[in-house]
């Protein structure tokens, strides 16, 4: 399991400074939540870590590897998986295929071996299926296994996205608003699953979330972003009582 260290991260889009000199660190096996009002730059942090675009300044280190300049498709091989706030599933493929694709970073066979179904390709395929089935079992997705993702209810799709990220066997997992749009029952399930993944697999988890209840329940530490800057950092209880955080959320001027 790997930690994540972000130092002096800044980025701006067309004159708007989305992040200003943000630094934080996540210890291996820790659950860190990033909270903050809309537009605070939470998802931007994720997009920078998963290299969807370049930072203007700062460095990102995962484990002992500098990933600031990696290509976006090289992030998976480092062991970082993520989910997306607006769901980026492979809609017209089955749940199983979605999970199997997450194994792409672990691919072992060549195109020719795949076309000819050589033993090497078959072994790889069986191995992927084994891993995918383990995740399906963990998340109780058996009844959806061969369903097309586009036809699933929203809550199930959110779960599939979480499961897909897990299929990568990540060392660091980034969850972007996993509880958004879930009903209370699904939300309770989710809290359990997040804690379960960390406790059993030891995965480091970074969470962007609005639901303060969920954040308080699962996180070891909370980071508050406001207007692209780091506002506060601490355990959930400390953060909940921090006057600057309360002001930022309620919109009062500080």
């Amino acid at each position, binding site marked *: 399991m790997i930690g994540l260290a972000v130092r002096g991260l800044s980025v701006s889009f067309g004159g708007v400074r989305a992040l200003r000199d943000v630094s934080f660190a996540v210890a291996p096996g820790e659950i860190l939540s990033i909270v903050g009002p809309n537009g605070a730059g939470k*998802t931007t942090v994720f*997009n920078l870590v998963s290299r969807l675009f370049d930072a203007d300044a700062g460095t990102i280190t995962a484990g002992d590897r500098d990933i600031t300049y990696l290509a976006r498709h090289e992030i998976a091989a480092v062991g970082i998986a993520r989910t997306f*706030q*607006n769901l980026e599933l492979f809609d017209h493929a089955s749940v199983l295929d979605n999970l199997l694709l997450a194994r792409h970073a672990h691919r072992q066979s060549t195109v020719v071996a795949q076309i000819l179904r050589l033993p090497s390709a078959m072994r790889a395929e069986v191995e992927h299926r084994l891993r995918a089935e383990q995740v399906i079992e963990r998340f109780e997705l058996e009844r959806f296994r061969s369903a097309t993702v586009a036809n699933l209810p929203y809550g199930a799709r959110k779960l599939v996205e979480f499961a897909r990220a897990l299929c990568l066997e990540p060392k660091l997992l980034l969850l972007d608003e996993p509880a958004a749009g879930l009903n209370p029952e699904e939300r309770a399930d989710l809290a359990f699953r997040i804690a379960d993944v960390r406790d059993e697999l030891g995965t480091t988890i970074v969470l962007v979330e609005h639901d303060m209840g969920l954040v308080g329940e699962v996180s070891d530490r909370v980071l508050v972003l406001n207007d692209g800057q780091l506002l506060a950092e601490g355990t959930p209880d400390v953060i909940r009582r921090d006057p600057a955080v309360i002001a930022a959320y309620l919109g009062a001027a500080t």
Partner: protein
Amino acid sequence: MDPWTTLAQLIVNGLAAGCVYGLVALGFALVYKATEVVNFAQGDLLMVAAFAGWTLIEVAGLPYAVAFPVTVLLLAVLGFGLDRVVVRPILGRPQFATIMLTIGIAFAMRGVVSMTWGPQARTFETPFSRKNTPFFDVVLSDVSLSIIAATAVLSALLFAFFRWSWLGIAMQSASQNQMAAYLMGIPVKAVTSLTWALSASVAACAGLLLAPIALVDIALWLVILKAFAAAVLGGFGSIPGAIVGGLLIGLVEQFVGVYLLQEAKGIAGYVVLLAVLLVWPRGLFGGGERKRV
């Protein structure tokens, strides 16, 4: 001929061809802005207009001045109907589906025209046919001049329409933000259909203007390929860009044919198209934004 006369004629010919490309490109820019549908049948609308004009003039015996507005009106109705019956139900599906839908419409229109009028090419008389206007030392054909003048007038009318008329403003607002326009009380569906009607009438004008130099023929639809080049060069979805892009493509073709390589004239426009797409996909007047995740 001395080089200056050649040059002047090339410019006029290029501008005339370019105006037609620009008008067709303008036609799909209108629809693209309103609905994100790219009408691959725009060239076929033009072709249908040319055949309709031929029928009205040569069969029904109407004078050109009557046949022109009647054809434009007929095409407006066709455009309105296409949106209502065929295109509307598919909105919201992936872009590829809408591309294929308009290709299907194009096939069907081409087939129907071919069944109705047969494969032979024809021509009709216009007030400009076979006349020339001397301009200093240069003799310019009236047909070319009529195309340029009509395009200028049409552009001015469209500009005024979008600037000052209620419907024009409603069309613009509906294309910028459908939901907001709807909430402001603009009948978005009707406005969209009218945008299609407008787009088809622009194609009709282009068809009637082009027919005297290009013959009334099924192959007229191919002009859409040049119009794509014009639209991409000008920036897809930009109305001034469509006209400017059209004029540039028209000129490039003429000049490449004479000064560079005779064989390349036919594909100069497409080479420009590919070059623009690869180097500078936004074109001259296009905007660009990135997808959010």
